[in-house]
């Protein structure tokens, strides 16, 4: 087979994949377009309008004023929740006694929907960035915490015995045995937390603030800037997709062994 042949075949395969990915969005946009033109409602902007507005609104100083701080907020809250959830999860996962004492209380706090904490945190912390980060953390920490506990509890006893026999303890025991064993569950928790972080970022910015993505979208809606409002929603969607693609990239690297083990088990 010639080189050109291989390249052509790969290109054809790539082309098919791109078509697969784009097919449904194109159909949906077309339907939306048709609907918005026919309905002629004031509240349904056409995709063309939204696209034009998108460029005008977000590729301006607004990007630095509203988008960058919001994304920073999201990442800060997510990172803090990740560290907090994993640390606490390891402690609780390793100690059945502590777990028995703490678990009922955790269940209670977990049951509280984080958005209702916003007014409370506003009173306690004030209307500022730490308050918004606290809202995000209060929602994101749970999936990380609970998944980490499960992961740590699930460390293979044979592997734990192996570590004891060979004197693997302390830091190396924690990183090589406990955290790596639990990493598939920790990553699953982080993936859920990322989705929650986006929601809570928007919600935390909808109350009594003067900047940010959530604030902007509510502001556009109140001032009947309909295409602008739509473009904000589209931006949030794109942000979510970008973050989840980046997360999947990291996960593929961190959990390469895990997918390998599962593939090997399937082949048997």
């Amino acid at each position, binding site marked *: 087979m010639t080189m050109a042949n291989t390249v052509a075949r790969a290109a054809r395969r790539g082309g098919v994949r791109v078509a697969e990915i784009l097919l449904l969005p194109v159909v949906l946009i077309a339907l939306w377009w048709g609907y918005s033109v026919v309905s002629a409602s004031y509240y349904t902007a056409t995709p063309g309008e939204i696209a034009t507005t998108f460029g005008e609104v977000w590729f301006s100083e607004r990007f630095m004023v509203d988008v960058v701080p919001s994304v920073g907020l999201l990442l800060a809250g997510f990172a803090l929740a990740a560290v907090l959830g994993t640390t606490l999860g390891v402690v609780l996962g390793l100690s059945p006694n502590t777990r028995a004492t703490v678990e009922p209380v955790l269940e209670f706090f977990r049951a509280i929907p984080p958005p209702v904490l916003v007014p409370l945190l506003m009173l306690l912390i004030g209307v500022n960035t730490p308050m918004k980060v606290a809202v995000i953390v209060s929602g994101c920490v749970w999936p990380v915490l609970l998944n980490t506990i499960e992961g740590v509890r699930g460390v293979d006893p044979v592997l734990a015995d192996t570590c004891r026999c060979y*004197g693997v303890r302390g830091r190396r025991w924690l990183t090589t045995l406990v955290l790596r064993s639990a990493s598939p569950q920790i990553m699953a928790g982080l993936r859920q937390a990322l989705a929650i972080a986006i929601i809570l970022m928007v919600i935390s910015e909808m109350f009594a603030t003067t900047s940010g993505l959530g604030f902007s979208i509510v502001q556009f809606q109140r001032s009947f800037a309909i295409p602008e409002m739509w473009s904000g929603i589209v931006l949030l969607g794109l942000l979510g997709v970008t973050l989840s693609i980046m997360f999947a990239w990291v996960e593929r690297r961190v959990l390469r062994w895990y997918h390998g083990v599962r593939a090997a088990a399937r082949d048997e």
Partner: protein
Amino acid sequence: MLDVNGLQKIYGGGEREVEAVRDLTFRLEEGELSCLVGPSGCGKTTLLKCVAGLLRPTAGSVSLAGHAISGPPRDMAVVFQEYGRSLFSWLTVRGNVELPLKEKKLGKGRRDSLVNEALQAVGLADSAESYPWQLSGGMQQRVAIARAIAYEPRVLLMDEPFAAVDAQTRADLEDLIRGLWKRFAMTVLFITHDIDEAVYLGQRVLVLSSSPTVVQDDIAVDLPDERDQLSTRSDQRFTALRSLVYTEIQNAKNGPAAPSPAAP
């Protein structure tokens, strides 16, 4: 060298307590290769865990070179039956073998030479950079054996290490163990449920009774030192020893400490 004295292990407490091991006493001499056989469920694994310092016995003691064992001793290595579960899937073959050496605080050069020598000895020099899940079952167990050897133990414990591999691989691994035992001058305690394997491998076979366990018999294997899968296994003496161990295990099943028949 390794002394097991009046070892007893009772699990649980109150009404539901189970006496897994009643009263075990035996001694392994320095450099000896002994096999332990017994009927299934006779507490072989409990015994191994007590000897390895992973379980605290209810009564009695285990001592290594005169020192009582209270936790896993530094100069003892263990190979478990569940090779897949005793290897770190996220470390390469080299990483798995090297990990205990890092904990021993050995320098990089020393670690490398120990790892390379061990992998060479088990025939895995070419797979050092692979991950365990990329290897077959027999190869994975070789990794676990290499890890044990690189640790430079004085005592090597093996808990039914070949129970989960196919017959051909098993024969290869048996010969590998005989070879490694001679080359690295270790004391080896090999636990198995397979009578043929026990007689083929050991200088001595300890037969355990059914639970609650005692030592049923202690049989010296007077086969030539050079063993070979074909000729040793067809040797008349091998057959005789195998029958003897088999009879002992049948006795063990019928009741602990039944009188042993005269040696053939």
